[in-house]
């Protein structure tokens, strides 16, 4: 990879922002201490953790609440699900999520299903919106938790979280709501003073913060039981030594994302419109996966390029120093087609040639021009040698 490459895979990860890195640095070496009471070194770090928590709560409109720092979004979702179910009567517990939720929700749900817990995975429409009628119909006396991935990590669907919460809480306000906000924080306003979310989970590396950081924001942690045990320094949920530079990093990245959200939305939305316009004008036989532009997340574009395979497209772009992602089974480590594309009704062939283009601060319209210029001949040559394009493209 050359130094100047075009990165269109921001939903996979984002670069750590230099300013955020600078704020983390002292806590790696000079101020390497861990939190403690009374001593000057220990209390300094305790204060750093408290400030970081407060900054995160404030960024989401809360004055009080609990912040549990984790190693990422996956551990955050797992801590909530296992923590809520630890002492539950699993045979009389009911969990709800949708078929397009993140695997860090679906896999723990699968684990409880095997243990006898009732699990409902809601269907979605063809754009990935959760079926609200199904949600209404599925709520029962045993329902304990409803989980929602706010912005879909493959097709950029922004769920109608407010409506989902209203349906659930009107039925029974004791049902807990877990919202995975990992892909949402950059572009969607999340105001917890307005939204009755019980647990919001975050990931640092998706918002220009450090890898290996995440958080659970718990409105009230009393329902949550610890599931990891050891020496408790500050949080009973995550015993052991804290990742102080990481805590500073994710807190700074949340502040940065929330403070710059409007600018981010404008920036990405401009490029998204430009990209989609160029794709539609220059590449034939493509289908947009997910909601239309204007409705979907501003930093997500996902196309199926018919008659060709995604790993081939991805590799040819890689040779040109352009980074994208694909939903092709050939490119996945388990040879399975992307489950989200399947859930919205795309067949194997459509998923086979899908590419996900996710935008960020560093992208420019000029980069999009270069991307399209490189993509056109790649699609042309792969279609020329494809077994199925000749039949259908009339070549």
């Amino acid at each position, binding site marked *: 990879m050359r130094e100047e490459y075009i990165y269109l895979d921001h939903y996979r990860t984002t670069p750590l922002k230099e300013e955020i890195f600078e704020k983390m640095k002292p806590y790696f070496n000079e101020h390497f201490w861990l939190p403690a009471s009374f001593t000057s070194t220990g209390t300094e770090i305790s204060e750093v953790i408290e400030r970081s928590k407060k900054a995160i709560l404030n960024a989401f409109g809360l004055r009080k609440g609990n912040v549990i720092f984790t190693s990422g979004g996956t551990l955050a979702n797992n801590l909530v699900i296992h923590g809520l179910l630890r002492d539950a009567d699993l045979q009389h517990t009911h969990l709800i999520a949708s078929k397009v939720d993140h695997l860090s929700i679906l896999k723990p749900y699968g684990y409880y299903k095997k243990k006898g817990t009732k699990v409902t995975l809601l269907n979605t429409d063809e754009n990935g919106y959760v079926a609200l009628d199904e949600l209404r119909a599925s709520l029962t006396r045993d329902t304990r938790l409803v989980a929602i991935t706010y912005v879909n990590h493959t097709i950029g669907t922004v769920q109608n979280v407010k409506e989902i919460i209203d349906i659930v809480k009107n039925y029974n306000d004791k049902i807990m709501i877990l919202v995975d906000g990992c892909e949402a924080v950059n572009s969607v306003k999340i105001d917890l003073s307005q939204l009755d979310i019980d647990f919001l989970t975050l990931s640092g590396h998706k918002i220009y913060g450090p890898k290996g950081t995440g958080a659970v924001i718990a409105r009230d942690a009393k329902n949550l039981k610890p599931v990891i045990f050891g020496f408790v320094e500050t949080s009973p949920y995550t015993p052991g030594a804290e990742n102080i530079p990481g805590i500073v990093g994710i807190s700074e990245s949340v502040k940065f994302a929330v403070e710059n959200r409007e600018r981010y939305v404008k920036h990405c939305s401009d490029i998204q419109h430009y990209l989609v316009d160029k794709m539609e004008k220059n590449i034939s036989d493509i289908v947009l996966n997910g909601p239309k532009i204007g409705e979907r997340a501003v930093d997500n574009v996902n196309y199926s390029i018919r*008659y*060709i*395979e995604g*790993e*081939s497209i991805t*590799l*040819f772009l890689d*040779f040109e120093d352009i980074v994208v992602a694909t939903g*092709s*089974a*050939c*490119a996945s*480590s*388990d*040879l*399975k087609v992307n489950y989200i594309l399947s859930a919205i009704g795309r*067949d*194997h*062939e459509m998923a*086979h040639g899908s590419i996900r283009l996710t935008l960020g601060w560093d992208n420019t319209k000029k980069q999009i021009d270069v991307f399209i210029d490189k993509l056109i001949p790649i699609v042309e040559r792969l279609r*020329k*040698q*494809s*077994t*199925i*394009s*000749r039949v259908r493209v009339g070549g």
Partner: protein
Amino acid sequence: MAVIKYTDKVIEHFKNPRNVGEIENPDGVATVGSPACGDQVTVFLKIDNDRIKDIKFLSYGCASNIATGSIVTEMTKGKRVEEAKKVTWKQASEELGGLPPVKIHCSVLAVDGLKAAIKNYEEKKLGIKHNAIVDENYIIERLEKIIYPKTGENIVAAKLVKYLKFEDGNLTIEITFDETDKFKQNVLEEIQEYMGEIKEIRKLDLRVVDY
């Protein structure tokens, strides 16, 4: 995740595949695989005096599939038909400097395409009938075409298939996986697909068992 990458030779063949395209009025032609479940390859043959005078292929597939198609056509062009029949995906993979186990599955298809095109030539031009007797041995041979992506061996050699019985058109297969095996679904689908092609099998009872 282990580092999974292609050799320079795979990349070179993927970038500049040899013998891509179609042959008009081929002596043998076959399409294997299906867009409904993955890659697809078509192989065209021109045979002259029992030799492969020309061979071309088309691929709706990934880099491993395209590169194997390319190397296989290069390995067999000019060869006698009997020699070409003996080419295995293992040889093709070795020619390419090796393939990651998870990608062998995609490369087998290209070799299957060659074999199927030769079969088509033999049936069409030489009138040879390929009516194999469908028995348990035949079914095991077919199962040996299915690659276990974790190790790159076939599923029989990888000892996943624990029991097999074929009687009166009813086929029972017992297969085992580790709890964490992420290729389970993939292997089960492949078995369904391969067994679905054998019309003598009226009913397939595919059981996942613990061992």
